[in-house]
């Protein structure tokens, strides 16, 4: 059923938006079930003079979810599945968890992160107006403007750049904060380790 829905979504998306660019981007993106790599995030937050920089590793399993493990400036892990968001600090015992089961706003946020990391343009097209261009023979750029009021509350716009993979995500939040996330060392192997699978199974 989910597949069918996804397919319907894809069909709608491709017919609904700047079809050619989107189709081109989708053709250039590698459709891997698993993606891992490193991230560097620069977050500009009201009340802080300098951008808040954090680095770490991430893993995206299209089936299971996202692991976002920050190493610098402090160790913390973020586990994101279709139904929950769980954050834990390496030391200090701080933790919080959100169940997205009945909150579409959170579920939407999770789905958005999934889509952004994996370059799932079809899903993005259902909630954003997409404009973009193909760069050279491999690259592409997309600019997303929310069409849905609940997302527009949070994001002013989102910019994506990449080639086979998404290389950079730029988030402009409605409240004035912004983040730039750079990905590096991207690969679609090795497969999920037992520890990783266990974390995502919860």
């Amino acid at each position, binding site marked *: 059923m989910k597949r069918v*829905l996804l397919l*319907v*979504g894809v069909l*709608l998306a491709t017919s609904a938006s700047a079809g050619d660019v989107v189709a081109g981007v989708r053709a250039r993106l590698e459709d891997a079930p698993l993606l891992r790599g490193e991230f560097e*995030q620069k*977050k500009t*937050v*009201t*009340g*802080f*003079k*300098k951008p*808040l920089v*954090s680095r770490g590793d991430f893993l995206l399993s299209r089936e299971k979810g996202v692991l*976002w493990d*920050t190493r610098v*400036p*402090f160790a*913390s892990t*973020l586990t994101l599945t279709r139904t929950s968001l769980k*954050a834990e*600090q390496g*030391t*200090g*015992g*701080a*933790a*919080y968890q*959100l169940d997205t089961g*009945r*909150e*579409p*706003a*959170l579920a*939407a*946020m999770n789905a*958005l*992160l999934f889509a952004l990391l994996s370059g799932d343009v079809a899903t993005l097209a*259902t*909630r954003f107006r997409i404009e973009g261009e193909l760069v050279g023979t491999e690259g592409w750029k997309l600019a997303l403007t929310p069409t*849905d*009021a*609940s997302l527009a*509350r*949070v*994001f002013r716009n989102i910019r994506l750049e990449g080639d086979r993979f998404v290389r950079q995500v730029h*988030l402009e*939040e409605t*409240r*004035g*904060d912004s*983040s730039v*996330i750079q990905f590096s060392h991207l690969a679609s192997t090795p497969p999920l380790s037992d520890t990783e699978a266990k974390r995502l199974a919860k």
Partner: protein
Amino acid sequence: MRSRWAILWALVLVAVGVHQVGFWRSARLDTDVLALLPEDEQAPEVGAATRRLAEGAGRELVLLVGAPDWALAQRAADAAREELEKDSALLEPSVTDASALDAAVEFYRPYRDRLLTPAQRAWLARASSEELGGTALMKLYQPAGPRLTDFDADPLGLWPDWWAARATESAARPRDGRLWVSGEGREWVLLAWQSKVSAFALGADARITAAVERARAAVLAAVPEGRLVAAGVPLYAEAAASQASTEMSTIGLGSLLAVLLLVWLTFRSPRPILLVGVSLALGCAVALSVTALLFERVHLLTLVFGSSLVGVAEDYGFHYFAARQGKPPEERGPVLRSLLPGMALALLTSVVAYLALGLAPFPGLRQMAVFSVAGLVGAFLTVACWFPTLDTGALPVTPFAKRVSASLLRWPRFSSTPRWWLGAAVLAVAIGGGLWRLVPRDDVRQLQSAPANLVADQRELGRLLGLPSPAQFFLVGAGTEEEVLAREVALKERLEPLVAGGVLAGYRAVSDWLPSAAQQLADASLSARAEAQAVAAVAAATGESPTRAAFATDVLTPARFLASPAASAVQRQWLGLLGEQHYSVVMLRGLNDPSVLPRLAEAARGLDGVRWVDKTEEISRLLGRYRRLMGGLIVVGYVAVLLTLVARFRREAWRAWLPSVLGTLITLAVFGWTGEPLQLFSVLGLVLLLGMGVDYGIFLLEHPGEGSAWLAVALAGVSTLLSFGLLGLSATPALRSFGLAMLLGEVTIWFLTPCFRLPSGKDIT
């Protein structure tokens, strides 16, 4: 002398006519079912709470449009919306959009520091400063998260959770700019509309129902597997109005045609038809005017019930014409004078019986009683004041009338023979057996008469949306507003385990949106302490110097909160000052199983100022109490009627009295044998029977051996039967059981009365 009365009555009728014109212009007809419900005798605040909760719902129309998946559901919902928008004079969309939410967020912003969920309160109280700092840092460094404020105004990111907790009070969630519900194998879009027309002004033309049906068709046309479920007071009101108007015309016209046909058969002259028609029309007009003057609004069911009056009010006209038939025109006056004592006595017993209906504290019944009494008096006065004046010319006896009159002589008459006594014994056994099997049932739910599809839709909506029940709630009262909020908190602590155990889906209380002043101050200082630690930890980690924002120094008062856009969800639950105390209502969601109600009642036990209200149970109890009271009244009434009859007829009084007693008993026995439950409304039918059943006996005793009296009784009996028989076909269960009791009783009395007539040649003197 007589003409003076005639003129006086004419003047009264002119006044009535003037009033009628105004009445039908403004048509203050009431279809609200609640208007018929009894007033709470002990606790007016409960009534106020119920009214308040119902008031707001009076114009609301809730629709769910569903389809197997979200995309189709949205398409179907758009089709429904387009269709509903076409009739903008009738319906408008309710404002439940994002701008209302934004306004609420802005209103609360200065008080963010004291809006905590119970879980957050517990966590802030116990968390170490490492944990607080860590949480703030993690949220700060999270890739993206929904924030409602800048970092300094909510360093621990508490507020989104508080809003999420508020959002759980409704099953619908914003999704893609719509309100979304998922359940029963479908995805649904919630549409909220409002009727621009008050529920009381909705006519039998059922415009809103028609608009909803068009929207349903549009949904199916757009999405074949789509589905539309609708509920709302306007739909019920329209269903009730159209049902009532159909019944009114059936009962009223049916009785009227029957009466006029009988008059034609008996007298073969247009004059009696015209005059009896006039007396009925005037009776009804007087009834309506008096009711409209005494009550704010005339209820539709009153009119349905009132239309059965046609079969009762014609008695006086029949008697006059039956006695007058075959006599020369100049004897009109003496004829009427000889009839007046019996007629007045008959009117008196009927009036007393109708008024007895008004003893029960059901506004609707009181109205029906007033309507009937006024109608009877109106018809009686028309006959007494006008008939002799208007009834000129000869009125020969017709063969039909002769045959009916003569039939009295062939009617069996009770005499002290073994055969009669054997019959009486058999009857006594049959009655005894029936009474033995009679079961009372007072459940108010059996009086539900809305169309099945509406009830089914309402239930489905209730399941999908977990709507709070308007009939079961907690009423919280205290001397001050502050204490009301504090008492709500105590109650919520008792409800939490029940929510956790799945007994109910949740509750909705004002104190969730507006903490008490003490709670606000405590929570503000709690969050100030914890957030100061969090900000310090973040400062240390980032090497910067962030600060915590300043919040309001005043306390948010009920008055300010209620005037704000934030209060819309719980506005109706704050009853304010009633008498000496302030009251609020805590509503419950997801109560689908009546068997858990006692556990809820238990939850409030021992809490000061908290009262469990179960309207359904309460009304059922009240129905039971009044069923017993009215039952007692019948017994007392029969004794009183017997004494009245003895005063006039001495030793022969039992002849008029016994048939009614037997009629009542036989009716009850038939109910027992057929398994029809005994409930208040059938008992009320028997009360009325007491007042009208003896009329026949009175007429036969007043004019012993006179065929004309029997003729009038026979005609009156047949038309009364028809009226109440038609009432027995009503789709309103209360009226149906009423009509059924009347019908059975009337038939029996009508058959038995001549059996107890005086032996020929004997006179009451």
